[in-house]
């Protein structure tokens, strides 16, 4: 009896010890109680979302358009990447859009979005985007949601701090991510300090039609330029850039570019630079860069090679650029809605400095400098500082603002959004994100007049948020309600590509002017067939041009003969429809490029080179009507040198008149 008791006691002790230890284990991420979140993101069938969310696609080179608060995906809008779905970059009309000084580059890494503003507020006219890889900027029309212009940036090693815009969309900026030796010079990599330079391009935007042109470039010290924001209100006329690798390392930057306690925020007085340019102080440099524009009357793009750029070396003009020390490797460099405060987010730092524009101006006036870097004055940290946000979280990246004087900063390492007051620098709230947030977006967040209401987190890690789909997952975004004191998680939604920056704009600013059709009367395409009477087939040497029309539910001509092996066939398809949402598609067997979609009133061209003789079908790819399956035709390919006569028809039956 005694023996048994003792054994039981031992067992009890063992189990007790185990229980105590187990209770020390922390719990995994808890389920987030959301209350009435469902009703806050529910947009009833047939109803519209409140905001358009214009989201960069990262390495897919596209922009995606979502509705907020529903998180529904409305459109994938190709910018720097070919898009076989619509034929963008494949049709003869759109190929020139992707031309560069390196030839046809069908891909890019699209990081940032800037929506056009007037007086610092959204005006709903254009979307600007950057190509980080082969340096480019693009302009997309808010009317047609189509890419209308792409401008290559010369003297750039990768266009990251771009396409941020000034208060009235006077300029768009394009700062090089990597410094490089200018003029494609062949130098040792180890001569970085001596030969490598930074380059910041100021692209002038035509206020009427949005056309972009490089007004001038600033030649700056050789290090990395990360992100930027223009001043607004009192700081209008200035631009702020975050800089890292002020160590000027050229290898293992992970370590070697993280050594200094402080890098720089670069403040640029662009009005001053403008004055110098007006005085003719800019030096003309020979360069080569492509400038591509799309015309929605000819429905065609043209690519022009430009060969000059005006350059101001800031070391020769000491009152254009000033450096402000900023905690380790700043990433985000965000200006608050009043234009007074500039938030530097040192992604490796344990606090966030907030600078005051007024103090910066005073420091410049009083020459309150701690020294210089390559001859450029470095303002004393304390002289420019409004204050530091203490212990905000780990890995601060980007900051957006609401209409109530609050800031929202994304924390990559601690995977959270931290809300704080811009004036008092007091931390007000924090919410977790799932997982490892990169950029974030408050509707109107970068403007002088934020719309507020929500903050959207664009996360870098998805893991278990959705049904698993193999090793490669979609990216995860979260929508939070910020209308109250506490941020509340409302919704998870998957995103395509890898979103970086995004902006959101009220739908009411966009929907009234959205293009529904292209007027067939205004179609100025060289090969348009404006009516079936103009449909025809022409031979020009070994080129066959088919002027084809499409209307529910037939293509004209739909019987084509007399094409010979060795010919190149151009199908110029005009959609005769004039009603909203009646696109037609065109595809032919064996096409080595893509299909094309043709919007009502538009003409698009698919080039096709037959490789064998025979009769090849073609058809409409976009289900257009009850008789869509009938919307098809045949082209006959005869051997090279044969004398099959060139002829074409629709509805004609051989032997009948």
């Amino acid at each position, binding site marked *: 009896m005694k023996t048994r008791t*003792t054994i039981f006691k031992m067992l009890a002790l*063992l189990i007790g010890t*185990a229980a105590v230890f187990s209770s*020390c*284990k922390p719990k*995994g991420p808890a389920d987030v109680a959301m209350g009435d979140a469902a009703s806050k993101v529910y947009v009833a069938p047939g109803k519209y979302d409140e905001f358009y969310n214009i989201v960069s696609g990262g390495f897919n080179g596209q922009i995606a358009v979502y509705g907020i608060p529903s998180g529904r995906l409305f459109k994938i809008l190709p910018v720097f990447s070919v898009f076989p779905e619509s034929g963008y970059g494949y049709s003869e009309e759109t190929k020139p859009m992707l031309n560069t000084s390196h030839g046809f580059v069908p891909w890019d890494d699209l990081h940032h979005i800037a929506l056009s503003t007037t007086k610092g507020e959204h005006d709903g006219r254009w979307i600007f985007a950057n190509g980080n890889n082969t340096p480019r900027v693009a302009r997309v029309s808010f009317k047609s949601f189509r890419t209308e212009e792409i401008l290559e940036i010369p003297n750039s090693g990768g266009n990251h701090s771009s396409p941020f815009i000034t208060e009235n969309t006077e300029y768009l900026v394009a700062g090089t991510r990597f410094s490089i030796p200018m003029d494609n010079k062949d130098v040792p990599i180890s001569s970085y300090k001596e030969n490598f330079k930074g380059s910041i391009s100021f692209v002038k935007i035509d206020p009427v039609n949005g056309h972009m042109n490089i007004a001038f470039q600033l030649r700056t010290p050789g290090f990395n330029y990360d992100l930027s924001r223009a001043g607004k209100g009192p700081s209008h006329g200035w631009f702020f850039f975050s800089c890292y690798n002020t160590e000027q390392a050229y290898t293992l930057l*992970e370590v070697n570019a*993280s050594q200094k306690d402080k890098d720089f925020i670069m403040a640029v007085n662009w009005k001053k630079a403008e004055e110098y340019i007006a005085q003719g102080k800019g030096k003309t440099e020979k360069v080569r860069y492509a400038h591509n524009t799309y015309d929605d009357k000819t429905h065609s793009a043209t690519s022009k090679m430009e060969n000059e750029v005006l350059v101001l070396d800031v070391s020769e003009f000491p009152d254009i650029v000033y450096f402000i020390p900023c905690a380790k490797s700043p990433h985000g460099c965000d200006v608050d809605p009043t234009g007074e405060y500039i938030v530097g987010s040192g992604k490796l730092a344990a606090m966030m400095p907030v600078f005051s524009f007024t103090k910066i101006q005073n420091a410049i006036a009083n020459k309150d400098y701690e020294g210089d870097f390559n001859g450029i004055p470095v303002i004393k940290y304390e002289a420019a500082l409004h204050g530091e946000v203490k212990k905000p979280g780990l890995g601060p990246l980007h900051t957006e603002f609401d209409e109530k004087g609050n800031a929202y900063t994304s924390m990559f390492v601690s995977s959270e959004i931290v809300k704080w007051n811009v004036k008092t620098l007091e931390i007000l709230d924090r919410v977790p994100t799932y997982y490892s947030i990169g950029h974030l977006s408050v509707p109107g967040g970068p403007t002088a007049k934020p719309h507020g209401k929500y903050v959207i987190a664009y996360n870098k890690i998805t893991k278990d948020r959705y049904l698993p789909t193999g090793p490669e997952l979609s990216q995860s975004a979260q929508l939070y309600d910020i209308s109250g004191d506490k941020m509340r998680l409302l919704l998870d939604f998957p995103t395509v590509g890898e979103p970086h920056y995004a902006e959101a704009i009220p739908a009411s600013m966009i929907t009234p002017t959205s293009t529904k059709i292209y007027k067939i009367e205004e179609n100025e395409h060289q090969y348009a067939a404006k009516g079936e009477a103009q449909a025809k087939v022409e031979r020009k040497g070994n080129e066959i041009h088919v002027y084809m029309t499409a209307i529910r539910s037939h293509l004209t001509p739909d019987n084509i003969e007399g094409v010979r092996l060795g010919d190149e066939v151009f199908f110029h398809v005009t959609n005769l429809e004039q009603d909203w949402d009646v696109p037609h598609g065109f595809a032919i067997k064996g096409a080595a490029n893509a299909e094309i979609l043709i919007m009502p009133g538009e003409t698009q061209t698919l080039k096709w080179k037959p490789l064998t003789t025979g009769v090849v079908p073609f058809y409409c790819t976009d289900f257009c009507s009850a008789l869509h399956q009938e919307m098809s035709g045949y082209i006959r390919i005869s051997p090279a040198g044969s004398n099959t006569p060139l002829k074409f028809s629709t509805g004609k039956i051989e032997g009948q008149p």
Partner: protein
Amino acid sequence: MKKLKPLSRILIILSAVLMVSGYFLPLWQILMWAPQYPEGLDMQIWINDIKGDVKIISALNHYIGMRHIEVSMFPEFQYMIYIVGFLIAFGLLASLVNRRFMLVTFTTLIIACALAALVDFYLWGYDYGHNLDPTAPIIVPGMSYQPPLIGTKQLLNFTAFSGPDIGGWIFIASGILAIGTVVFEFKRFHNKI
């Protein structure tokens, strides 16, 4: 020279044999959670090896200047197998010799080894958490990253837990059995008087 009761001899053998599992099961575990690691990261210490997400943990820790965790960091692995072997052999011998002082020595040895292991682990943890690379990308002033000895601790964005794994629990069971046997023996002695 008191002889042992038959039950005590069985319990001692049980205690010694249980420790054989130490060669086949993980002894200690360190678990880590972060917001972006909802499934957690897991590191297990075996009698002569470290297993689990060691590479991921090392890759993360290098940002804050912590060294890569490698088997060669632990000279203990060279002789741990012999110490445990000796303990098992001593247990079996104690049962065979059938003397009470052998039981007491066996129990004392187990407790001493356990304490030594904890001290050793603490010293390693202190060195690992404090001896940081001064050129690390992220340096948080005043921050060190010593893992918890036993229990839970918040280290930057990670919640770390340290505690016995299954093999460790069996070792604890062995120890409790040995201690219990001592208690059992001495209680019997007093009852007789």
